[in-house]
């Protein structure tokens, strides 16, 4: 060994100090960057006894990252659903007001509360049937019920429109993320082939995957050449060597009979009933569920309530000539007959109080008491007696009488109108409650998983500081060594 060899060793010590310092600096500066994985400079002893930086590696934990992404997808899906359901629940949130003592008016505007108000108004009308003012109160209550159904239906369709446009922006985010992913992935593959440092590219790729899992549930497969393939959680390929195009045609206007378009990947639908491999999580899945399943089901319930109302208040033939029953107090645009339970789609949007009994539209309130909205053949009170309450009693009874409902709405197929309306509120509130609880739960899962990942791969400043002090000491010592060796050379040269 010679003094020159000592010089070489000292030189390599400076180089590895610098590399370690660089790793520590990078770690310290990214201590607060979410998802950053700390770097470690790995040292090895070289052939002449010095140290070399063999590699700079990232601390990774693929399993935990997968867990973070999966829980992010679940949370995003539940959040999208809960957002829509909360909007819908606002339309029936009369539970928030205390039971009023006035007896005839109630805050809130759920069809159920409005139906109860109508029943109350009819009961009052029954006690004084010849009182026109009381009769008008019935018409007013009926109008409120009709507009409650109209606005409920409008809210449902607005939620669907919003979901549809959110889906469109989600799809464009996914496409843009897939493009970024494609570039970063190519950088990593070529970097690994040439032995370049791809740590920062790998960090970017992980962060893109986490962003992607916000929008759509994914699973990833690492390939031997360092590239990563992405599949949806339903199994459709999103990225394998090249990015697939996710397509979606938005629908701007929704009615009860509108079916939204499915999101497709390379022609394969990944949302909707026709999808062979549907996605299960991510904002896209939640939005599609809201748009295609939950909101339409509530719409169907509103339609059933509206149709049930038209049928319950229908007028029967009183002339004995076998005429068909026709819509009475409640009718709908273009009505020529009573609706069948299977053909009530969209009724909630078009139900209205019959103009024939509405004084504001030139109607006659007394037709409520006497019948005859559809002409003389449908008049119940043929003598015109002022105290006649038979028809009013029939109307009161009809709201609590059992009638058939379509099974497609997901509630009872045979129930009274008021119970059905109550059950519908229960259904909506319980969906909202479940979704909200799920959001809370999934959010805590995300923070647990993120904490675990952060602890496994993140930066601890104290550790970095300790390492830095070590390096500082090592640098000081190396510098001292250099001075000493230099002194020895100087002594040698002076001696000569």
């Amino acid at each position, binding site marked *: 060994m010679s003094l020159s060899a000592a010089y070489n060793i000292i030189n390599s010590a400076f180089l590895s100090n610098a590399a370690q310092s660089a790793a520590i600096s990078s770690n310290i500066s990214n*201590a607060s960057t*979410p998802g950053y994985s700390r770097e470690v400079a790995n040292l090895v002893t070289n052939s002449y006894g010095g140290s070399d930086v063999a590699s700079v590696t990232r*601390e990774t934990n693929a399993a935990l990252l997968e867990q973070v992404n999966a829980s992010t997808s679940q949370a995003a899906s539940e959040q999208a659903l809960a957002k829509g359901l909360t909007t819908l*629940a606002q339309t*029936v*949130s*009369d*539970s*928030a007001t*205390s*039971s009023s*003592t006035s*007896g*005839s008016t*109630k805050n809130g505007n*759920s069809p*159920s*509360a409005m139906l*109860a108000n109508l*029943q*109350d108004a009819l*009961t*009052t009308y*029954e*006690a*004084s*049937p*010849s009182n026109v003012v009381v009769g008008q109160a019935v018409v007013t209550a009926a109008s409120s019920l009709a507009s409650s159904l109209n606005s409920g239906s409008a809210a449902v369709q607005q939620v669907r429109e919003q979901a549809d446009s959110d889906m469109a922006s989600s799809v464009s985010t996914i496409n843009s993320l897939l493009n970024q992913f494609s570039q970063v992935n190519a950088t990593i593959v070529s970097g690994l082939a040439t032995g370049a440092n791809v740590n920062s590219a790998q960090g970017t790729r992980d962060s893109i995957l986490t962003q992607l899992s916000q929008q759509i549930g994914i699973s990833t497969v690492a390939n031997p050449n360092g590239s990563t393939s992405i599949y949806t959680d339903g199994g459709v390929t999103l990225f394998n060597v090249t990015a697939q195009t996710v397509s979606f045609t938005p629908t701007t206007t929704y009615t009860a009979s509108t079916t939204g378009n499915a999101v497709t990947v390379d022609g394969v639908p990944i949302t909707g009933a026709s999808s062979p491999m549907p996605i299960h999580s991510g904002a896209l899945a939640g939005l599609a569920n809201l748009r295609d399943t939950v909101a339409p089901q509530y719409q169907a319930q509103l339609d059933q309530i509206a149709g049930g109302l038209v049928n319950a208040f229908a007028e029967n033939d009183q002339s004995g000539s076998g005429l068909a029953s026709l819509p009475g107090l409640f009718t709908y645009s273009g009505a020529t007959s009573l609706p069948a339970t299977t053909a009530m789609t969209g009724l909630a949007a078009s139900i209205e109080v019959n103009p024939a009994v509405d004084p504001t539209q030139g109607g006659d309130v007394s037709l409520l008491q006497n019948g005859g909205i559809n002409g003389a053949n449908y008049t119940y009170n043929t*003598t015109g*007696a*002022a*105290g006649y*309450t038979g028809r009013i*009693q029939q109307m*009161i009874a009809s709201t609590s009488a059992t009638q058939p409902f379509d099974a497609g709405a997901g509630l009872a197929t045979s129930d009274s109108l*008021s*119970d059905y309306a*109550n059950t*519908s*509120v*229960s*259904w909506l*509130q*319980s969906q*909202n*409650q*479940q979704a*909200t609880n799920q959001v809370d739960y999934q*959010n805590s899962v995300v923070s647990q998983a993120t904490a675990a990942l*952060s*602890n*496994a*791969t993140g*930066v*601890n*400043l*104290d*550790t970095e*500081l*300790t390492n830095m002090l070590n390096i500082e000491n090592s640098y000081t010592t190396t510098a001292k060594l250099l001075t000493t060796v230099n002194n020895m050379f100087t002594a040698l040269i002076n001696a000569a």
Partner: protein
Amino acid sequence: MSASFVSTSYLGTALLPSIAQTQSQLTALEVESSTGQYADLGLQLGDQSGYELSLKNQNELMQTLTSGNGLVTTSLKTSQTALDSIRSSAQSVTQSLTSWTSTEVNSGATLQSVGANALQSLIATANSTANGQYVFGGINSSVAPIADYFSSTTSAAKTAIDAAFQTAFGCLPTDPAASAITASQMQSFLSGAFANEFSGANWTGNWSSASSVNTSAQIAPGETIDTSTNANQSGFQQLAQGYTMLAEFGGSQLSSAAQQAVASAANSMITQGTTSITETEAGVGATLQRVTDANSSMSSQMTILETQIGNLDNVDSAAIATKLNTLSTQLQTAYQLTAQLQKLSLAQYIPT
């Protein structure tokens, strides 16, 4: 790295979610302590929302029924008072008839005036109204049930009775020729052609505009009852018949024997009428009792319903106060810990 490794970013933010959650719980508690109800009832009740709504609806229906029963009670009490006055006036007519003899001076005129007064008062009382509705009209409550017998244009009833008398005896009661009518002839007329004027189509055509169908209303959930009587009850017909006999034939040209027959026929008819009216009155009293019972039963049901609604909607104020304390302690601890953790850095302890 070892299992005890903690990243600095997690150390600094570990308590953030907990702080946010505590704060949102605190805002909910603020609402709850001021309203006494859950901040978001729908969210709290979930699938019980419909049940809670049905309780509220039931409660409100009973409130509506209770206030509607006020109207029913007014109308029934009016009927009761009217029937009471009809009965007592009938009883006083019976008393006058018992002490009446055909031999005293102006005996016929006395009969006539007793009958006419009683008939007028019967018609006026039968046309009593409550809340603008004729209480004895049945469902035809907008028309006075009994037509005025003594109206200035001769009433249909009087015309018909005169015609019947004319047919039977060939003269009017005021005609001197009427004095030839015997007591037995008079008796058979009164129980025959005259009685026919107070039943069936003659009654509904000439006397009564009331409907035989009574008004009915729901007084409690599922309990519908007749809330009126009507002037087509036999009591009204019998009294009208008895009074009309006196009014028409009392001061007439009839012989005193025939007058005696009129008085005794009237007496028996009015006595029957009094019995019928008493029965009707008893029926009205029973109905009133049902309304009162329905009200008190609904009132106790409403108390139960309100308790149940309260159980669902209301928060326990003591629990809220305790929860508020716990949460604010928790929040303070979280703040303190976060501040302490920020200080814990090796960098602070290295001399520069």
